[in-house]
């Protein structure tokens, strides 16, 4: 049930509408309206991009949607060198590269055990997990700080990666559990009779089968880890440990009058997630909808 809506959705995203041009006036009006709304939706991006390439003088003297006549690329190199921006980029990259695959594999293991091994308490655990998908972690920033602090992990990579995994587990387990449940018993039973352990079945049979779902979750998780702000704000106090969202926030505070550089900093913060999105668009949709909307 979960997989079907996911695939139908991603197909919907993929297939280009090649309908015969109907001369339906309502559809034409609708299309024009959509075009206008889409342009409004894009306007902030265009505005930010243009401003990021303007000198301070050009920002104040030219119109917002006037393309920069003499692109000031130095805004990017200057912003990069200022206010720990480069080290924030590196920290974000390290945390994301460790957290995302690690969290996903742990979630997949747990989801497999919950879905495919008969346990008395698996229903209760699953309920606990589903509950976790709904709870706002913003509520627990202070106790989270206290906990990580008492473990001596403030301003360390594990100190932020472990909570990130903890808050990523519920959603991922929930999705993967649904997916594993849908895989027919026969696939694993033959192997079980042959004496294979669940570790082998998980690794050899189930992991390969769920690769598309894993890919979708991987990409969603990449973006949300890259973008995370609130937890990083309390767990990373030392500015040399800051991630990109923290770096951008402080950049805004310190150099808010350097419009060109500020906007260059915004572009650089947003770019990695945007590129990932544009390349893996269809996975986003399937990753999101497979969990939330069922047939």
């Amino acid at each position, binding site marked *: 049930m979960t997989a079907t809506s996911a695939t139908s959705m991603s197909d919907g995203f993929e297939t280009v*509408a090649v309908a015969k041009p109907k001369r339906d006036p309502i559809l034409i009006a609708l299309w024009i309206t959509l075009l206008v709304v889409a342009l409004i939706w894009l306007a902030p991006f265009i505005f930010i991009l243009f401003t990021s390439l303007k000198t301070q003088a050009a*920002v104040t003297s030219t119109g917002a949607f006037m393309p920069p006549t003499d692109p000031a690329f130095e805004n990017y190199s200057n912003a990069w060198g200022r206010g720990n921006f480069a080290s924030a980029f590196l920290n974000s990259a390290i945390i994301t590269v460790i957290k995302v695959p690690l969290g996903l594999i742990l979630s997949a293991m747990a989801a497999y055990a919950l879905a495919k091994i008969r346990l008395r308490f698996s229903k209760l655990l699953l309920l606990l997990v589903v509950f976790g998908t709904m709870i706002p972690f*913003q*509520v627990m920033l202070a*106790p989270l700080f206290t906990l990580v602090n008492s473990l001596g992990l403030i301003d360390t990579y594990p100190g932020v990666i472990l909570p990130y995994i903890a808050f990523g587990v519920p959603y991922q387990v929930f999705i993967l559990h649904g997916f594993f449940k849908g895989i027919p018993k026969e696939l694993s039973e033959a192997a079980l009779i042959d004496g294979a352990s669940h570790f082998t079945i998980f690794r050899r049979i189930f992991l390969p089968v769920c690769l598309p779902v894993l890919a979708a979750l991987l990409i969603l998780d990449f973006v949300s880890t890259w973008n995370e702000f609130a937890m990083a704000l309390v767990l990373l106090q030392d500015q040399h440990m800051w991630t990109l969202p923290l770096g951008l926030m402080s950049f805004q505070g310190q150099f808010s009058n350097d419009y060109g550089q500020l906007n260059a900093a915004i572009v650089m913060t947003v770019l990695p997630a945007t590129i990932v999105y544009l390349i893996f668009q269809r996975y986003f949709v399937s990753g999101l909808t497979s969990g939330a909307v069922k*047939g």
Partner: protein
Amino acid sequence: MSLRNRTHDPRVQALILLAPAMLIYVIFALYPMLNVVVLSFQKWNGLAPQRPFVGLANYQYIFTQDPVFWVAFRNTVIWTIMCVIFPPMVGLLLALSLNQKLFARNTFRAIFYLPVIIAPIAVATMWKWMYDPFFGLFTEILTSMGLQSWIQDWLGDKSVALYSVFVAYLWQSVGFSMVLFLAGLQNVSQTLVEAARIDGAGRWNIFRYVTLPALRTTITIVLVLSVISSLKAFDIVYGLTGGGPAQSTQMLALWAFTQAMQIFDFGRGAAISVVLLLITIAVVIPYLRWTQKHEEAEQ
């Protein structure tokens, strides 16, 4: 694989598979959640070795003496109502439109979804600059249209700041509702739509009597997710206004954070968190029961 020989019991294997994820989840997610309840009955500045038990004093303080709590509460209610109405409504309209066979509809979908993947803190930074009363986008547009008198200090005027923040939030979150509705629309029976069309039903009637009933599940899901994500609103408020001016954009999540991490009263911060937690649970539990019933009905 000597491990395999020692662990023939499938229950042991299950435990080994479950343990890492569950331990991390329990320690770093569930424990802080329980701890926030304990903290809400204590007086603590975050450093002192002693955490004296003070009973309901923290709750009494936030309900009766804290001048900001009820402002934050009221703003959270207004915010949540706006979040339940507007992003789902715009998302549904976009989904219905983009479910038609239109030229370049995939490009349109991609454009409306793009803001969803951008860091909320970057959205805040972008919009703070667009709201700049001197060089910002809105000032510029209104000036070019000759509407200078409409120019506001978007984020500095306490009567408009909350709505300015919401517009930025709307821009970011519409794509999320849209995608969920688009997925839901794939489940609307085309046979029924065709049958209704042949029977002479117009667009509105097809929508009203075929599409809308088929979307009921999706609508519930979108509304619940909207409530939950609206209660979580933190980054965008923090980045745009920090709760100001004069607490006019202060909300419960941010105020709990401010009490604990900036005023260093962890007990009061925790009490605010517990209030927010209870509100969330009041939405989540009925929803979970509803989904369970729904699943049982499906099977």
